[in-house]
């Protein structure tokens, strides 16, 4: 009897492993939401009190190629989804920013100028572009480093905004 159990043991252990794998694989994906107060903004053109969430805060620069890549998605967010986006131009000359937005369209409700890189440090960036999602209480709920792709918008940004709206109603 004891021998038989020993022979069964590998099978039992293996099945337990399979069950735990299956739970991980079959579980619907959860989006990690954070909840952190927004660092203060004291930039030329954009101060903390200007910001009304839910909104996106997007660090960009006209000299940054990846920013060009995400520009269409920002335009779609502001035009189609009516989501306010606040831009922060990082170490960018004013006339360069203006020309950039004239060429590609302006998705931003307001633009702050971070010429000295102060906000860059306060917000803990590692480069541009980076995007933050702010809720109605000016809490950061989501942080995206790098180019914001179309699938990021549909799979992450929009679901979080919907979830924020439903919790607000409760």
């Amino acid at each position: 009897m004891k021998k038989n159990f020993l022979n069964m043991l590998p099978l039992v252990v293996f099945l337990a492993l399979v069950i735990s794998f299956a739970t991980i694989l079959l579980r619907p994906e959860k989006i990690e939401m954070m909840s952190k107060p927004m660092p203060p903004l004291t930039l030329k053109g954009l101060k903390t009190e200007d910001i009304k969430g839910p909104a996106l805060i997007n660090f960009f620069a006209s000299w940054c190629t990846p920013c060009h890549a995400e520009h269409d998605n920002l335009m779609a967010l502001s035009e189609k989804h009516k989501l306010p986006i606040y831009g922060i131009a990082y170490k960018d000359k004013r006339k360069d920013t203006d020309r950039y937005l004239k060429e590609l369209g302006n998705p931003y409700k307001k633009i702050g100028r971070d010429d000295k890189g102060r906000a860059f440090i306060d917000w803990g960036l590692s480069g541009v572009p980076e995007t933050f999602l702010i809720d109605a209480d000016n809490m950061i709920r989501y942080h995206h480093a790098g180019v914001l792709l179309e699938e990021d918008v549909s799979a992450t940004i929009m679901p979080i905004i919907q979830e924020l709206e439903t919790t607000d109603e409760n």
Partner: protein
Amino acid sequence: MIPELGHFALILALLVALAQGILPFPEIKKRSAILLFLLNLSAFSALMWAYIVTDLSVNNVAENSHTLKPFIYKIAGVWGNHEGSMVLWSLMLSLFSMLVALSKVQPETFKAKILSIQGLLATGFLAFILFTSNPFTRLLPAPVDGAGLNPILQDPGLAIHPPLLYMGYVGFSVAFAFAIAGLLEGKLDKHWAKAVKPWVLLAWSSLSAGIALGSWWAYYELGWGGWWFWDPVENASLMPWLLGTALLHSVIVLEKRDTLKRWVALLAILTFSLSMLGTFLVRSGVLTSVHAFAVDPMRGVFILGLLTLYTGGALAVYAWKANTLESKAEFSSLSRETTLILNNLFMATACATVLIGTLYPLLMEALNAEQISVGPPYFQATFVPLMIPALLIMGIAPFIPWKKGSFKSLTPRLKLPLLITIGTLPPLIWVMENNNGDETHPVGVWIGLGVALWLSITTITEWAQRTELKPDRIKSLPLSSWGMSTAHLGIAVALFGMIGSTLWLQEKVLLMKPGDVMEIGRYELKLKEVGSIFGPNYAADAAQIELKASGRKIDTLTPERRHYPVAQQGTTEAAIRKSWRDDVYVALGEQDTESREYWVIRAYVHPLVPYLWLGYVMIALGGFLALIGTRKKSA
């Protein structure tokens, strides 16, 4: 047209594999095995054709290749992606099945069972390819050019790393099929062991070579300055290697002494299961890591299903039939058998610790606990202590005879190697510390180098005593003995490399502008300039660095930061100056964005690292020598 033929060949292959799996006629099984290989080969060739002519209407080619890519990487591109690598996996599976069909494995009923199991394995993997990972899907309209191969994968080492690794993984499927057939027939004896040994050797040697190449590639290409990172995907290849090592040694015990039957059966099942688990971990995206290039939950579920079916089925056969296997041979506590059992215990335990370290974060996640990761400190604390006694015993085992040994005859034979080890260890450490100075790790140094010395000296002494150093005896020494000595010595040699490059590693990161000098170990690095260069499908910043050793100029190093515009990805090409004492390894980092004058330069000195690669080569070579030995004997 040709891609459609390839697709059609895969569909036919699925049907043939199923026929090989379930039809009860041995003759049909044999022919199916041959046909299955030819169909797989056609599918693989069709895909390769699409890559060679860069047929961009094939989605897989458009996503992974580019007209500008060098020819050799167009070919390597076939398996540099998920779908293509699964076709390669299936091709190898059918190759092994055909080899079994053509071999002289007896009796026919036993061979038929093996072919059935291989047919069922092939059926599952072909279904996986056709339903979740079809490489021949068309893309209309075809893009103007492809998205390029992942530039990190554009390296000769990587072109042959996956085929070797897969040869190892898939090679263990033969031992798996042998074990199940043996259990079902109730015949897992010394004849079984003799028949399975060449297959295990082939798989083990290929896997060793594959892991070695991967490690070499990480060291030279990834620019991280290390050769092993306990990355889940590396662990996924290490686990079957550890169990495969145990399997190889216990098969020898079974062949010589007709014992350990159940254990051998279980090892054969688990070794291939871990190979499949490796595929599952890499392909499913359950573990995210640099290696995981296919992240698709559907694939994960499918592979998990296959794993459950095959491993679960095999373990069920084991649970049902293991009782019918009787082991009768007796041996004393000091015997070759005992040392090999100890080897098996250490290898299996080491494999279990790696498995736990790799899966623990996953299990915690399954229990909805916090996400954690298990890093190198865990593995160093668990894996390394297990290896020390294993390596010490490894040095002694070849001296001990089968059945019953005695201390009386053993002690005098070990006296010489022990004296040499004790005599050479202090001077060796003195030389190493003098050369590489700075930080020392007294205990680790003594234990590590002690073990490596002990193993190399015992291995050489055993060889010398066995041949008595007479030319005719050296000539007549069987290849299997040569294989063992070479592989064991290879472990020792690799160990010197691992210890040297871990314990005496020196690392410096400096912001440098042209003209600046960095001192590291016995070297001086002077940054001359940083310029731009252009390759066939990339542009790069390249630094000119003058290398001086003890005040004399010995070389100019040119590390690069490449940018591949098509893939929108960069790679770091480290520059390395090799010598038999150490490697100087220089990588060019970012330029500072403010003044655009300074560059981040990372430099490492890895003492003894060349011995790591030499050791790897010897390990794999030892396996292949023993393999040729078994073929010669049976011929």
